[in-house]
């Protein structure tokens, strides 16, 4: 057996054969027959069952999204209702947002003369 090279990329046939012999359990046919017999009893999910499972997940996700959207819309509506709307008297009493334009004042003075 050769001295091992670090990270040798080739399998070591001597070590491989020794390990194979040490790990071999024999009776491959018995094992295979047993697994194949049990496989006959295993229920493999059919495509429609898989689809149905995904459909259930999809419906559940859609319900969650709808509930979240409903909550957000409801919260937005409630917030807009609580906003204070100014009354007519408030608008009349309140000072104008913009000061009177100088040109308008001058024009009215000149017009009076």
């Amino acid at each position, binding site marked *: *057996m050769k001295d*091992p090279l*670090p*990270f*040798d*990329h080739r*399998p*070591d046939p*001597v*070590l*491989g*054969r*020794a*390990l*194979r*012999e*040490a*790990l*071999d*359990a024999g009776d*491959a046919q018995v*094992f*295979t027959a*047993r*697994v*194949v017999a*049990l*496989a*006959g009893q*295993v229920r*493999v*999910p059919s*495509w429609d069952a*898989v689809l149905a499972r995904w459909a259930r997940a999809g419906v559940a996700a859609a319900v969650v999204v709808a509930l979240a959207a409903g909550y957000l819309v409801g919260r937005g509506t409630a917030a807009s209702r609580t906003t204070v709307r100014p009354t007519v008297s408030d608008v009349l009493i309140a000072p104008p947002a913009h000061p009177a334009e100088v040109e308008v004042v001058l024009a009215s003075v000149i017009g009076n003369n």
Partner: protein
Amino acid sequence: MVARAVAGERAAFGILVKRYAGVARRVARAVLGNPEDADDAAQDAMLSALVKLEQYDARRPFGPWLLRIVANAATDRRRRRTVRRVEPLDVGLTAGGPRPDTTAERRALNERLRQALAELPERRRIAVVLFDVEGYSHGEIATVLGIPEGTVRSEVFHARRRLRVLLADWKEEG
């Protein structure tokens, strides 16, 4: 063959089982040690693979996909089973000993190798078995173990260094 098995053809699945039974049992035994436990784990893994065949990506090689299931099944079984006390490896055994020319000596060597394997970390055991016994590439073993390829190289190197001590003075007949 895999496609036929996916399509529900049980005979095709039987052929796959026959083809991969050897490697699956050896990998499971490398993890579990006990041959009966190993066969149970390999069997569970094969049946689990049958159920999961729909999830298999046909563009990738089948062997690593299956062996990942096998390795996981063996690991799960090892964790579940009663913890057995591991006897430390006999120093006299690891130091070589007489050449195993006879059947009894071969059997002793096999036992020594199994004990030495049992002392290695689980990932290292699987890596060296898949690389040196089964001929899988580092990349494929990385897929099986879910670790980087460089780590696989390191695991194989350390496992070999340990196991080669046992075989240092042993030469194959013929």
